């Protein structure tokens, strides 16, 4: 096998990994700050994709790339304000049931509104075509979304590490009681985190709409892998999740290339291996209240 093909396959894996990453980062943030395992996170990815298809005829793909994540983020804000908020630090089973229910409602609502068949949608003409670098041929669209996604991840990292907002969020993950003792209410931060996380999931949906089937179950399909990424990366660790997403993407891609039937199994084998060697995940931190 030529080196250039391996390189391309690594690129393919990275692209998939980056989509997992946009979803997994949100999942990880919501869980580590609010204690809620958000099973509805995949639904926001699907809603983002559907909204993109609906909005494109009027505002174009460029417009939808901005508008769709924003609108879904507002939906996330409403859901946080009226539903999720009631379940922070409560019995985790209740939050699990709530978000599981939300995920089913969302999937069925999409099915009722748009039908079960995939909606026709393709890459906008201005992003079609291939990029040639020597022997390497790559889809221009995939390179573009790789750049956008990496920019978002970079932005999120800056937000979490270089701003006062980020400091409070990180403190809230480690010790919410201490944050409260300092007179800071975590509520508005939680609202902001959920809104941001939901927006990122919708952005992933928007970017994948042209290259994957826009159909009601798309959210459930990607959610499982996003969870695997969070588990492998380790709770509360930004770079752990980033690294895990990229590893999972590349492992999936390379296995699909070398031996397709083992594609899914390879990801779970990787998870088992990581959990055996590092039970808290790659860079998982010790968070007192989850131990």
């Amino acid at each position, binding site marked *: 096998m030529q080196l250039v093909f391996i390189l391309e*396959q690594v690129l393919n894996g990275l692209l998939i990994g980056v989509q997992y990453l946009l979803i997994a980062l949100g999942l990880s943030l919501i869980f580590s700050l609010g204690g809620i395992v958000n099973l509805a996170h995949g639904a926001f990815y699907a809603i983002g994709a559907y909204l993109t298809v609906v909005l494109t005829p009027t505002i174009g793909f460029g417009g939808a790339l901005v508008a769709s994540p924003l609108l879904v983020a507002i939906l996330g804000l409403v859901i946080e304000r009226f539903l999720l908020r009631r379940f922070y630090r409560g019995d985790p089973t209740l939050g699990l049931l709530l978000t599981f229910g939300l995920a089913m409602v969302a999937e069925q609502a999409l099915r009722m509104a748009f039908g*079960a068949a995939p909606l026709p949608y*393709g890459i906008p003409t201005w992003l079609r075509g291939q990029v040639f670098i020597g022997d390497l041929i790559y*889809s221009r669209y995939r390179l573009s979304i790789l750049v956008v996604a990496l920019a978002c991840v970079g932005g999120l990292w800056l937000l979490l590490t270089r701003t006062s907002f980020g400091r409070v969020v990180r403190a809230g993950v480690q010790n919410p009681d201490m944050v409260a003792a300092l007179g800071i209410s975590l509520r508005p931060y939680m609202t902001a985190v959920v809104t941001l996380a939901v927006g990122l999931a919708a952005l992933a949906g928007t970017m994948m709409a042209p290259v994957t089937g826009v159909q009601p179950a798309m959210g459930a399909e990607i959610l499982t892998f996003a969870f695997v990424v969070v588990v492998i990366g380790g709770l509360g660790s930004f770079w752990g999740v980033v690294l895990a997403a990229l590893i999972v993407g590349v492992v999936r891609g390379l296995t699909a290339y070398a031996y397709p039937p083992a594609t899914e199994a390879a990801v779970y084998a990787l998870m088992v291996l990581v959990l055996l060697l590092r039970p808290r995940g790659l860079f998982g931190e010790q968070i007192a209240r989850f131990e």
Partner: protein
Amino acid sequence: MTDRFGDSLSRRNLLRSGGAALIAPVLASPALSQGQSDVIRIGHLTPRTGFLGPLGEFAVQAAQLAVEEINASGGISGRKVELLAEDSVNPQTASAKAERMVQRDRVACLVGEINSASALAISQVALREKVLFINTGANSDALRGADCKRFMFHVEAQNTMMVRAAGRALVDKGLIKGKKVYALTADYAFGHDLLKQAKKFFAANDATIAGEDLIPTELTDFSPFLLKLRQGRPDLVICNLSGTQITNFLKQYSEFGLPYPVAGFGFDTALAWGAGPGNFLGTWPVIWHHQVDSPSAKKFVAAFRAKYKKPPENQGWGDYTAMKIVAQSMNDLKSTESIKIVEHLEKGATFDIAKTREGYFRPWDHELMQEMYAITALPAEQVKNPYDIFTATGPLPGPGESLEVLATTRDENACTFPA
């Protein structure tokens, strides 16, 4: 936390939720409590979620339309037809639901399915309970051969018929003889069977296989395989995928702009519609499409469009046709008894199946003998609406030929029904 938990388990709440649990099933199944004998129930099972879900939706919509039409024209011997439609999910669930429909709901027959493995599971229940099952979407040759059952009939074409229908069009286009083919195949019963039939066709028509991959049905990213295609440089890509896999493949194939012609031996138009104009490409077989030129096809398309605001696709045709065949047979026989219908169909009863020629079931393997079509994608600039995105051949077999020329012979796919 503990407080909240304590609250939620108070006696009052417990009573409330217990009461709700008792009432819920009553509300959910009112049909059971009324009119047991003056309706004829037909059980409909097909996958409505998962990668075949998009096709299942067309199946259910078409079956409902057929029932409305049957009831509007007087029902079956004056009795109304009631459709019990459920998601068959997977072979285990399909089997359990089929059994429940027969034993508890007393359905007169079972109709539906797309997944070959689930169809096999239902056919086992049908045989055991001696209830007619009409398969409307499962293609594997094995269901008509080694796994054939006396109580199972097939409106859907077998894989060999699909391969030979598309194969004719491909040979005409000069894409087969002496060419190198790369085959991508869905990794489950249907795909394995289709690949087997495809290989026989290639061998018989002087084509060689340059590469092949089995692709898990849950895989949504095809980039690794597109890369392999580029390395393999085949003369033709054969895509024997299934359900939403086809949509994903078409979108990504056109994204990477590979130059090789594409064709496939298994197909459903809803998946081409899902890929969209410009992404859909290649030549494919279909058992039916919405542009078929016959009076009953036009009537079906108009009724479906009026009800669902979109044209029906081939899976919808299968379930609509099966329901009509059941109703017509029961009316002709003035009986709903499965064994009588089986004998009636085996005697060669003919049916208007929304095509040019009438169809009939072969007595020895229960396959519906019928015309098929091969469709080829239109270039994006010639597409005027999201549905008319292909051109079709005339009926295959052609007007002068026997309807049986595309199907397997007894020697190729033997079936015996134990007495």
